[in-house]
């Protein structure tokens, strides 16, 4: 309880951590896993499904639906222009 009081940022009322929505063009994915491995919030996992080329594209992990902070790194690092985020 004390820990929660001490560790809460003093400006947490005014500073908002962004929330991002992940958009996916699954047909372009080639399963390289850059987005999955480099997401700072570990939002993404490999899906059980495959696209038409047989690659397992990324999906938002169970329980991580509100974890994306719209940093945009997945969009920048994806070699296929297959994923991007927008701020909610």
């Amino acid at each position: 309880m004390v820990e929660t009081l001490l560790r809460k940022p003093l400006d947490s009322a005014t500073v908002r951590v962004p929330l991002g929505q992940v958009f996916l063009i699954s047909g372009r994915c080639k399963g390289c896993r850059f987005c999955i491995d480099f997401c700072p919030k570990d939002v993404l996992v490999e899906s059980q499904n495959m696209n038409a080329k047989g690659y397992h594209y990324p999906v938002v992990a169970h329980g991580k639906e509100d974890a994306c902070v719209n940093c945009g790194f997945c969009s920048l690092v994806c070699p296929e222009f297959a994923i991007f985020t927008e701020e909610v």
Partner: protein
Amino acid sequence: MAEIQVESHPIDALFRKDRLPHIWCPGCGIGPIAHAYALAILESGIPQDKHVCVSGIGCSARAEGYMNLDTYHTTHGRALPFATAMALVNPELEVTVLSGDGDLIAIGGNHLIHAARRNVDINAICVNNFNYGMTGGQVGPTTPPGARATTAPYGNYEQPFILPYLAAAAGAVFVARWTSLHVRQLKDAILRAMQKKGFTFIEVLAPCPVGFGSPNDIGDAIEETWLYRERCVVDHNASLQSLEIDLRRKDVPFVMGNFVDIERPTFDPLVMMKEKGRE
């Protein structure tokens, strides 16, 4: 929220969408580099119609074909003189040469040093994946010592170039090195190159899991990219001679940065006539 499936990407306007997905291997670093280039085009303030991309031959050189610009896929090694002529004939064009280490440094090496010497107003982006990828992974002038390639099965016994050192020595006015992982810094460097008058040279290390990683016991693109991530340091003030890359020597980091940003007279064949006030 779960992911939403869509059909297009915000950067698609800069690409020939009907040609996607591209031919590069899963995990290839050229895609993020093309993406950084596209973002720099959008931020450059120069109309998309005035941007021109010229390349030679190789995997990296294929990038131009995917970009929604005036693009020129020329002969192996000859992108720089081709681009020089375009820049001279139409100074309104923003000319970028996006090509690979084999194309720009081996067969194109002579043209590189002369373009830098002249200080032609073009931007060179050299994707360095340490091998000749398109033809299956042969050794090249940037292959690190000891690394294996199909034409160096016992390990590369040649010494590679240090590209920023070479470009700076030849006269480039802006010299930088990043990786395909340092996408934001790369985009900023490309933007600086576009805004700067003169010959700019950006080396970008990129993973090549099939051509380079596989023969060198690097498992996949993720492992190759983590290799860069772990061994990269950023030091804009590093001495150019110290920028060597040797995979075997764990104590030698891969140094990234914007190393050179100077002013030199740019190449303008008509300036001399104008300045002398000839009739």
